[in-house]
């Protein structure tokens, strides 16, 4: 395993170093004293890389990433998993806005709460199905323009009076599914989605991911599942399909 003291390293230097070591065959990394360095893991395409980050990484962590597993033992910032294709990011804290932007595969696990525009324009194709699970609450525009994938919000350890998700929930959504552990205020729903109960097919899709999520953070799977879940799916696949031809 390669340990890197990231103290004072600019993101250029740090990412170049990681890239060079990965090309030389290093597969396990531990980055210590990370603070604010952007683009960690960006474009890394070795599926067997495992990276542990100690500290708060900067924005655009794991963007375009294709395979590695990154574990953050702290909070993280904005735009994790931008256009990520495969692999997994596990954050043992909270994270910021615009997570999973255009994400097209792999998994993003956030233990705590997440910010605004999370899961914006996630997409899927056949077996490429991205999964984003947040243990806490979310801000406005969750799943905005979502075109595919699985977005899960659990609301664990939620304080009274704090909404599970914000306004404009699923606005413009036209594919994929959002699972919510808690109630939905119809006022906050985007026009393109409706609320449904989960059926068996939902649980067979959600269950294994949720099990892994609980194992990663030490949550009790049965207790998590005992909460009342609902799902949001788009009511029309191609809302603008007739825009230019009718």
């Amino acid at each position, binding site marked *: 395993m390669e340990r890197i003291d990231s103290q004072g390293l600019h*993101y250029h230097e740090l990412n170049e170093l990681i890239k060079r070591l990965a090309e030389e065959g290093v597969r396990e990394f531990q980055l210590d004293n990370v*603070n*604010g360095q*952007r683009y960690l893991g960006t474009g890394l395409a070795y599926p067997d890389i495992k990276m542990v980050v100690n*500290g*708060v*990484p*900067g*924005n*655009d962590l794991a963007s375009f990433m294709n395979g590695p597993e990154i574990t953050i033992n702290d*909070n993280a*910032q*904005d735009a994790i998993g931008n256009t990520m294709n495969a692999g997994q990011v596990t954050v043992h804290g*909270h994270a*910021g*806005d615009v997570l999973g932007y255009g994400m097209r595969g792999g998994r993003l696990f956030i233990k705590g709460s997440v*910010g*605004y525009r999370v899961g914006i324009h996630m997409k899927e194709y056949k077996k490429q199905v991205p999964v984003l699970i947040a243990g806490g609450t979310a*801000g*406005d*525009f969750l799943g905005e323009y979502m075109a595919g994938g699985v977005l899960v919000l659990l609301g664990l350890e939620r304080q009274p009076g704090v909404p599970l998700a*914000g*306004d404009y929930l699923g606005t413009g959504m036209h594919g994929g599914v959002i699972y919510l552990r808690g109630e939905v205020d119809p*006022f906050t729903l985007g026009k393109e989605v409706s609320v449904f109960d989960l059926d068996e097919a939902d649980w067979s899709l959600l269950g294994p991911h949720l099990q892994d999520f609980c194992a990663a953070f030490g949550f009790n799977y049965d207790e998590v599942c005992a909460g009342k879940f609902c799902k949001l799916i788009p009511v029309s696949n191609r809302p603008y399909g007739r825009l230019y031809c009718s």
Partner: protein
Amino acid sequence: MKGTFPRIPSGCSITGILNKKAKRFSGADVIRSIRLMHDRSNGLGGGFAGYGIYPQYKDHYAFHLLYTNEASQHDTEYFLEKNFVIDRCEPIPTRPHPRITDTPMLWRYFLRVKPYVVEQFSSSHNRELVKSADEADAEKNFVVSQVMEINQKIGGAFVASSGKNMGVFKGVGFPEDIGEFYRVEEYEGYMWTSHGRFPTNTPGWWGGAHPFTILDWSVVHNGEISSYGINRRYLEAFGYHCTLQTDTEVIAYLFDLLHRRQGLSLENTCLALAAPFWKEIDRYPEPKREAVTAIRQVYGSAMLNGPFSLVVGFTGGMIGITDRIKLRPLVCGQKDEVVYLSSEESAIREICPAPDRVWTIRAGEPIIVKLEEGVQP
């Protein structure tokens, strides 16, 4: 086009630090915090506001001036002498810096308003523009008018700050370089704010760097105020004239107008500037619905449109707020009696590795932090 261009992942950076017990600390911390977000700015502007930095002149208006030439200094000093007692006047201390060039002349003045001036001014000017029943307030109106007059009428002279026991140090460069240039680490204040600039719509010049100020208000801003034109025309009716070619300027004047002059609470001032959508207002219970409706109607021209996150400083406190759909980031942190606001959590952790609490604020909902009860700035 030939070659490749390095990506500039910019987007402005803002930081604010307040010690709620008014313990003063060196500007070195705020420089370290803003330095961490170096890549958010592109070298075309940086600046700092320090509060509590002039305890020996705490009752004087501290005017920080930028001059492009000696004539502008001569004219400004002649102008100031008419209405102020200048108890101290000196160049703002700087050190030569390899990356800070084309510097204007930088001077500061510690001023007292001459005794008869305010009364004369109040009686000879439009009542709506300047008059106040409160004597201290009337003096502040007068000081605002003097700042406007210098910025508008004296070529090459611009007021960087004009508050009591505070000062702004700003210019063209990366913020950490500007901090070193102005020797910001040699000052001690109970509150600091800072900005790294990535100018989008307006020129990167010394007067256009943040913070923007009037009296003891200072504003650092990440974003664009697309309502600038409306806000600017609205402010002109109240005697505020925008001369610094940057949208953020209106925000400082709006706080002065709405809170100091018109008596809105800080909360309601924030409500006017980052007003909720009508569909949300309609859901509020009475009498809140009626109150917020009134604020939106009366202050429609003061509303800020476009993306923003702001740190607003004033004597004894600071405000963090974003636009109502949170198009720009703002993170809060707290450790004992110190509160931090910043564009990125890492910039807080750089100077406070183990905060008691870190959280992000909700869109349009201000966080207003003040000195503890009974603590004097």
